[in-house]
């Protein structure tokens, strides 16, 4: 059913353009942001008059896919699209060649190679560059050094700071943000964050209250206030949609991303990796066997699925603890089966007609159920494995403070088995964070074992982890993690996975620190946890932005407030699930919209901190 004939392709492309409806379901209509981004894209394309071909930095096709489809580009005379590669550009009879690239030096070298290989006598094509999300002095200098800068008619930037991922979720997909901020002390990503927040305020109104915790949060708030001052004199006349902005540094809560996420979506990300809203899965479980066909062509390509709240069933189960997914799927299966059985009851022509008219919807539901049953089966194979169980046990021991000051036998065994290095680093870092640093002897032992087993060059990675504070030697001060754990109730004995009554269900016991801070801010307020806030790194603060008179909201009785929570340095799907849970709690009175520099999990996060993760020796 997945293979389509070519004739289908073009006609349905246009209808797909409207598929971002799920962005407007939420409390805040994020489609406005998407529309603004699309408009910007059209305007750039129209600047390059005539037919065009786009050469894509492949990384960008993912994020761009969330903004526009090919049909939009085609309407603006984009006739060909290529992937950026060394050598000569493929032939294309077009007036303009446009490079859509991230500002990275290695990409500039490829572009320069493309241009110098052009046949100058026969070609009269115009070249353009569109930098996403920002122009870069360094890159332009590189093009100049390569002697091709003058070949470009147009060098522009496409400000794609915040990309709407779902009705309540925005991401900058700025992969290196954490590394840049905490390792390289480079604040460029914070500047982009502030810019993105200004855009958001331009579209959704000034946010009257800003709270924050952490060094980076403080800097972003400062930049925002400064940018606002620069436009002093003019007033934003939009009724504010957001009541509060909460800026949180990732390094305030280093623990949460290290833990294995136990929600459905979180596990899909941990195991298969979700990238730009898509996941690639092993194809075997998805093969459709028909009677008489046998199993002759089993697909070998991974199955790629889009995951977002536009799919009803997914929206329902994505944030559940995985242990509650089986029940939810079987409930759904019963409903769908019953609906299909209805056809036996359809006697009159009218009834049959009605049944037939519902068939497409029902089939969509069936195919969605089939997919998620398959995914759940794949995940179950892993979560029921001994390795998964042992790993989780150790994580939970650390999080509850059991034996965090000794060398852990399980970690030792994993090293001896040559388990993936990232898994080892995740566990060691977690132990360090939960012990407020490792004893010298313990740290030395781990380091030696890691270097001996995985190679001495990983010294550089260990050094990075130390600089980022994920791995640290114990200093004189007391281990304050137990105090933080108790005060913020980070461990809940009776986490209810089926019918949760607390956010701790997302990690089957552990409540993400970041989300506890968010929850407490809403009620009873941070004043109640001053002591703990002081133990966590960086300042905490509150700022107010003046609203013009007349824009103050007159709140209806019982109307919820809306908070935008911005995670600087990344957020996990389990944390998002916990915030969605809080939005749904009836008497919370608060709804959350989530924004981040990057959607992360422990693995992608640690990887971003490694030095040359694929070293040539491995």
């Amino acid at each position, binding site marked *: 059913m997945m293979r389509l004939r070519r004739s289908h392709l073009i006609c349905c492309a246009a209808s797909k353009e409207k598929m971002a409806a799920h962005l407007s379901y939420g409390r805040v209509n994020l489609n406005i942001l998407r529309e603004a981004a699309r408009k910007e894209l059209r305007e750039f394309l129209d600047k390059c008059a005539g037919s065009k071909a786009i050469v894509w930095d492949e990384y960008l096709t993912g994020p761009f896919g969330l903004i526009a489809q090919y049909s939009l580009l085609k309407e603006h005379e984009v006739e060909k699209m290529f992937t950026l590669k060394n050598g000569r550009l493929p032939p294309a009879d077009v007036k303009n060649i446009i490079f859509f690239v991230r500002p990275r030096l290695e990409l500039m070298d490829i572009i320069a190679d493309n241009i110098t290989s052009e046949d100058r006598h026969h070609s009269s094509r115009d070249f353009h560059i569109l930098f996403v999300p920002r122009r870069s002095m360094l890159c332009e200098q590189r093009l100049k050094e390569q002697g091709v800068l003058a070949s470009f008619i147009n060098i522009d930037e496409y400000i794609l700071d915040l990309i709407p991922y779902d009705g309540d979720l925005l991401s900058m997909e700025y992969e290196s943000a954490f590394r840049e901020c905490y390792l390289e002390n480079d604040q460029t990503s914070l500047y982009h964050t502030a810019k993105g927040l200004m855009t958001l305020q331009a579209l959704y109104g000034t946010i009257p209250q800003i709270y924050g915790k952490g060094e980076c949060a403080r800097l972003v708030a400062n930049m925002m206030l400064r940018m606002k001052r620069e436009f002093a004199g003019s007033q934003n006349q939009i009724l504010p949609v957001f009541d509060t902005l909460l800026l949180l540094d990732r390094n305030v809560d280093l623990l949460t991303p290290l833990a294995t996420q136990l929600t459905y979506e979180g596990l899909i990300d941990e195991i298969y990796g979700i990238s730009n809203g898509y996941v690639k899965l092993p194809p075997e479980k998805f093969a459709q066997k028909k009677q008489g066909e046998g199993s002759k062509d089993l697909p070998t390509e991974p199955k790629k699925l889009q995951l977002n709240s536009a799919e009803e069933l997914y929206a329902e189960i994505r944030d559940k603890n995985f242990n509650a997914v089986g029940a939810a799927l079987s409930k759904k299966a019963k409903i769908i089966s019953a609906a299909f059985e209805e056809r036996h009851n359809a006697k009159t022509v009218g009834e049959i007609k009605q049944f037939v008219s519902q068939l497409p919807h029902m089939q969509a539901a069936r195919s969605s*159920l089939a997919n998620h049953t398959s995914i759940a089966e794949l995940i179950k194979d892993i*979560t029921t494995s001994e390795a998964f169980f042992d790993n989780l046990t150790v994580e939970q021991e650390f999080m509850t403070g059991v034996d965090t000051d000794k060398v852990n036998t399980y970690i030792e065994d994993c090293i001896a088995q040559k388990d993936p290095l990232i898994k080892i680093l995740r566990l060691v870092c977690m132990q360090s964070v939960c012990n407020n640093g490792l004893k010298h002897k313990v740290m030395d032992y781990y380091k030696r074992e890691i270097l001996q087993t995985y190679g001495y060059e990983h010294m550089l990675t260990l050094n990075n982890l130390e600089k980022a504070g994920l791995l640290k030697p114990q200093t004189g001060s007391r281990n304050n993690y137990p105090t933080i754990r108790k005060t913020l109730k980070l461990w809940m004995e009776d986490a209810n996975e089926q019918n949760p009554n607390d956010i701790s269900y997302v990690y089957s016991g552990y409540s993400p620190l970041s989300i506890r801070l968010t929850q407490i801010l809403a009620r009873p307020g941070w004043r109640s946890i001053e002591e703990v806030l002081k133990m966590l790194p960086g300042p905490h603060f509150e700022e107010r932005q003046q609203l013009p008179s007349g824009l103050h909201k007159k709140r209806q009785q019982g109307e919820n407030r809306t908070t935008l929570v911005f995670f600087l340095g990344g957020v996990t799907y389990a944390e998002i699930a916990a915030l969605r849970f809080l939005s749904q709690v009836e008497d919370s009175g608060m709804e959350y919209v989530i924004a981040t520099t990057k959607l992360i999990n422990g693995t992608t996060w640690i990887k971003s901190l490694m030095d040359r993760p694929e070293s040539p020796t491995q």
Partner: protein
Amino acid sequence: MIKSKVDEEDYWHSSKFKAFTFDDEDDELSRLKESRQAVNNIRRLVEEDDDEDDVERISWSGEPVGSISWSVKETAASSQRADREPAFPKISTDTPSISRSQSGYSLSSLFKGKPKVGNFQTFSDALTDSSVRLYAPELRKPKSEYKDYVSDWSPEETVQRLQQGKAVSLERFRTLQDKLLLLDHAIAAHDGNVITAVLIYLKRTLCKEVLFRELESRQTALRHFIHYLSETQNQRLLLELHRALGRAEDAALLQYKEHLSITDENKRRDFLKNCLSLPFSAEDLAHVQDHYTLLERQIIIEVTDRQAERGGKVEIFQKFPRKALILNMPLITTLYYCCFYHYAEPEGTFSSPLNIRQTFKISEKQYFVTALAARAKLKAWLDVDALFASRNWLGFTRKKSPLSFQRVVDILQKNSAPTHVLQDYVALVDDGELRLTLAQKHKCHDIVISVRSADAVQTYRDMKDRQLLLGYRGKVVRGSAEERKIDDLLSNPQIRWKN
């Protein structure tokens, strides 16, 4: 799951964990089966329609048809036969395409004022200025932009122009004081791009000593400068910078990192040797020293073994040809290699496992696991046996292991050890129940039957597991004493069986 049920429960009760186990497997996850069943049933109902009416339009790779990444592949593929058929119908350029947007403003109109578009009006052009003001007054151009024709911008204005990507000349900042003022304004704007632009100008126009000195008191700019130098691979200046600022350890690590780009092993070894004189922390220095020693040895071993392999006289290389060079492999991999090819060598040689263990202070456990895996791979069961041999003071030998016998069995099994070898080690597992689970898993029935039969029967009895005992009865010899004992137990009315 190996962890036995009783054990597990004890564990969960004694400690406070009770999370994410699959105790209630029957209720929860097995429900997946229900939904799988339903999916399959329904499929039969609607099979015929599947192909035609499926509402989703996705290619097998899952990209929605018409998505950008899908189209990149499609149009690129079609370009190879471009002369035959155009990939997509070309849109006539005569008719201006009218923007279909519902929203009347774009990000650029917010930031840059009116967009310059072709000769037709877009929706956003049609909007008056006042509407833009209504939507985004804060983002209109700041005043400074109107001074486009004046060229002597203040540092502040220069920074703003740089941020907007406008042409600007930095040459007018001539004195050191002016330049530093410009830099400080760039830093205050937090835009890495602008900071870098100013730094490039300063690097060109200031002498190193002055630049380094000034950067020292401006940490943000310093970081950007370091990033710039490493991006452009200006290693030499970077090292000078670190040294000038007294950041010796950073400089040392940075230089050490360079070894990764050296492919020739001899050059790499020499480079690492030179690194030993760098000002590392004591701890890091020890690692670099080990790294150097390791590579030095690998080079020697590689040369000798290559000759031995080519000579064709050493049996092991003939029987198990080497699959890869040992150069640049991690230490433990090297140890494994030596345990495989050079196990019995006297401790004096470079390739002797014992020598390696000594030189690099490899922990007992690591050494043990590695040697065990290597010898098991070769099916050298006597060597495996010898690893465990330990004599007590009375002269009896007994098997001792730094890791649990469960792990030992695991490693042996991964190296496809035969049952008769496995059972020796299964028998040494302390925990009775675990021992039985392992015996069953690895099909070492006779160990339970012949050697530990009494134990097994007793254990099943203790577990009150009638089913297991019954199953076990089928495996013992008919009419044997064992069978009689089992029958006695089975008919004993005193025992309250759990199943």
